[in-house]
């Protein structure tokens, strides 16, 4: 969605920290170990927490790779072990770099190469638990992005606010032209720095931001205003429309669409 000339300004640093910590909190990610093989022979073992682990712990007496992975998982106390041939990895990385389409933006390309990675792991790696990485709490950004793209269309603006009770926790406003995002900002870019603080309760603050977004970025096609818990649930939901519907009913999410 990003235009190559996207302007990305007046981002509130504190709000951005909130989002970063939320997405990258270590306890949200599974711990993994990766075993590297060359023609079936182990070459190196790396455990996310501790780096490279000597191959002394490799269960050489176990001929079945699935069982090797499971034994290593228990030994290293990680959520998942991936065993993969070095040649497969080399091919994957090569394919990832060949995959760039000159029309792709960052997200398009990232999703494409991630898809290749997931495909490789599910088809050519041995995993415990396996055979795929499904079931781990990674955020399916693609559907969220598609939802915004569909709602905004080729022209217009959008606004996402997340409140922790009545305090604005994170905000993102964007303007779309010719189907690409040409400007991104936060509440800081909608409300001048010398303006009085946004009024609580959050419903009123949201209305003020919506008005400011309309005035600054043009007609708002989509505005989503979440309570923090609802934001987390919606972001991670496997069925986005259903999750949005659910939180709208409980008044933890306010949607504006035009």
């Amino acid at each position, binding site marked *: 969605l*990003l*235009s*190559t*000339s*996207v*302007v*990305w*300004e*007046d*981002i*509130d*640093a*504190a709000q*951005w*920290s909130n989002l*970063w910590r939320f997405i*990258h909190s270590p306890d949200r990610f*599974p711990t*993994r170990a*990766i075993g*590297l093989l060359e023609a079936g022979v*182990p*070459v*190196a073992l*790396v*455990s*996310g927490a501790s*780096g*490279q682990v*000597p*191959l002394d712990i490799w269960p050489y007496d176990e001929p079945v790779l699935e069982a090797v992975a499971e034994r290593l998982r228990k030994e290293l106390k990680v959520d*998942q072990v*991936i065993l993969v041939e*070095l040649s497969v*990895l*080399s091919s994957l*990385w*090569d394919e*990832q*770099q*060949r995959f*760039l389409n*000159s029309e*792709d*933006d*960052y997200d398009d*390309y*990232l999703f494409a*190469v*991630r898809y290749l*990675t*997931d495909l490789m*792991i599910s088809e050519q790696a041995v995993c415990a638990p396996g055979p795929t*990485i499904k079931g*781990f709490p*990674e955020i399916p950004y693609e559907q969220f992005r598609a939802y915004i793209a569909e709602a905004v269309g080729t022209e217009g603006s959008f606004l996402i606010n997340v409140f922790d009770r009545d305090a604005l926790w994170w905000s993102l406003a964007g303007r779309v032209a010719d189907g690409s995002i040409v400007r*991104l900002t936060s509440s800081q870019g909608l409300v001048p*720095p010398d303006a009085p603080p946004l009024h609580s309760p959050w419903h009123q603050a949201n209305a003020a931001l919506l008005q400011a977004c309309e005035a600054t970025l043009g007609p708002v096609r989509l505005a989503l205003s979440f309570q923090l818990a609802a934001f987390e649930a919606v972001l991670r939901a496997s069925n986005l429309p259903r999750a949005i519907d659910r939180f709208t009913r409980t008044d933890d999410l306010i949607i504006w669409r035009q």
Partner: protein
Amino acid sequence: LTEQAVLRPDAGSATTVRLDSRGLLLGDSRRRLALYSGSLHYWQHDQKLWAPMLRQVRELGFEVVDTYIPWSVHEEERGVFGFDGNRDVEAFLRACEAEELFVIARPGPHINAELTEFGYPPRLVRNERLQARTASGAPAIHVIPPKAFPILSYASEEFFGEVTYWFDAVCPILARNQYPDGPIVLVQADNEHSYFFKLTPYDVDYSAPAIAHFRRVLQEKYETVEVLNETYRAEFGSFDEVVPPRKFEATSREELPQYLDWAYAKERYLTDGVHRVASMLRERGISNVPISHNSPGWHGVPYNQVALEQTVDVHGVDFYVHRREYGYLKQGCQYLAGTARLPFIPEFGAGTWPWWEPIEDADAEANALTALMHGIKAINYYMLVERDRWLGSPIGRRGDVREDTARLYRRLLEFLRASDWTSVDRRSDVLLLSVREYERFAFASRAVSPPFFPEALGPLADLLRHEIFAERTLGFEQWIPRELRAWSNGCAAELSSRHYAYLLGDSESSLEWLSRFKALIVPAFEFMARETQEKLLAYVWRGGKLIIGPRMPLTDETGKPCTVLSSTSAEGIHVVEHAGEISQALSKCNVEPLCELDNPNLELALHSNGSSSYLFVANPTSTSQSGTLNCPGLTELRDAWGNSEPLTAEAGFHLSLHPQQIQVWSC
């Protein structure tokens, strides 16, 4: 050792602005200019805002402002450039002069600056002839918002031909604005030349010009193919037949030289690229001021700090880190202080780009104190003035000052002035050395070479986060890359926890440089290059103390017998098998810790000049720490930073530090 201010003889000697280990010296008067600077990107702001923004920079206490000059913004078509409106770089330089600010100018060609395609004109990155290639011949891609792009090959003559158009246009402007005719006191050649962060051994660059560069490096080293064949145990008819390795396949020590050479060529690709850009600047009249370069990292190959400072006047390292990364920043600063002409951070995060973890005010404060504690003398804050694709700067996009954030910078500049920071030296008795041939071995023996796609690697991202060595001994008694890290990291931990005054160094440094330290601690395995062995022995003959381990080398890196160190009768060499024995060895060398402090989790550094001393105490842990400090002759500690009460000695000083706190005491 406190005499850090030794100027290397060639540092800026032919220029009006000279550079030494404390900063810059201007003109014949040798006026001292401390290099405390901040970035402002003129083209991102309306010209009317330049003067008020520069005034704010000055008001924070800075005397130097830094700016890129973006090729892509100025180029209208090949060979045609615009310098009007907010692109009028000369008007910006005049505005800086009017506000009594000196300038660091960075004309690229690579600048990043969070611009799409990093400041190169789009026509360049789309030109397939200029693109760097992966091991299989595909264009190498840098993945970054808003658009991934193919990276350029700095081995390509055609690329440098394109740079000529840009430099021919911009250099005359810079040349006529050099000190004393204008405000420019430093010019940077290129930016973060590092394979666009693709720092693994077998990912890039395998373009035809890069392979030709590899062969030229071999020819320069071996001179004849017969010598190369003897070393490689090969039968090449000419250097043109040698192909670079595309993965680590060595199974015996005899195969090692070709991989060490590839690692060396990867270093040379960087130093030769920087040299080429710096030479182009010099040829176009940038002759009054020093030329600098910056790298995004420091540790091991492909970086080579000492070689880079043979191509430019000063080479620094950029840091965008958070307070929990104290150890990484500390080691980087110790390495710069232990190797660089001027320990300089050319980009120190004041805020961040939106696709990175924000650097908060508390991070910036901890980072500043960590850098000073471990020997940094010059800093450029990037970005002091916020702009498109940046957040968290002390000065906003409208010239507004964010008081909460700005407070740190005012306080820091006040401390630097009050302490006369350029005049104090960090006490450094010991240098813990990186040995280049082992670093090349460690680099070349990586089992995997992921491209720089941390976000795209998903569940495989740990392969990029860690050094992963192919677990083969190659016939050596030890698995050297792993033992190297274990021994060196163990020594560093021992030196920190026992409070020795130490820095990190590099075996590439000159004998004169190394001889400034009372003791060298050097990792050593079965092989070590003859040149390194001879330098270390010369250091011992000069009276230095050499602590070496875990064993004595018996061959050179090609496997030929070389017993320069093991057969010497010189006194002053101590072999230490285990890192835990370092303090005993230092004691035998009459090197003592800085002070007695009964908490090994707390770290110390002492800076002093003839009249003042500053003791830094760091708690890098995530829990509160306390300890009792005993230093002979020390009766009072006065808070020099403003976060602690004064202390007087009562059976020692009772220190108490919050998690990740650094205290600065005047004593």
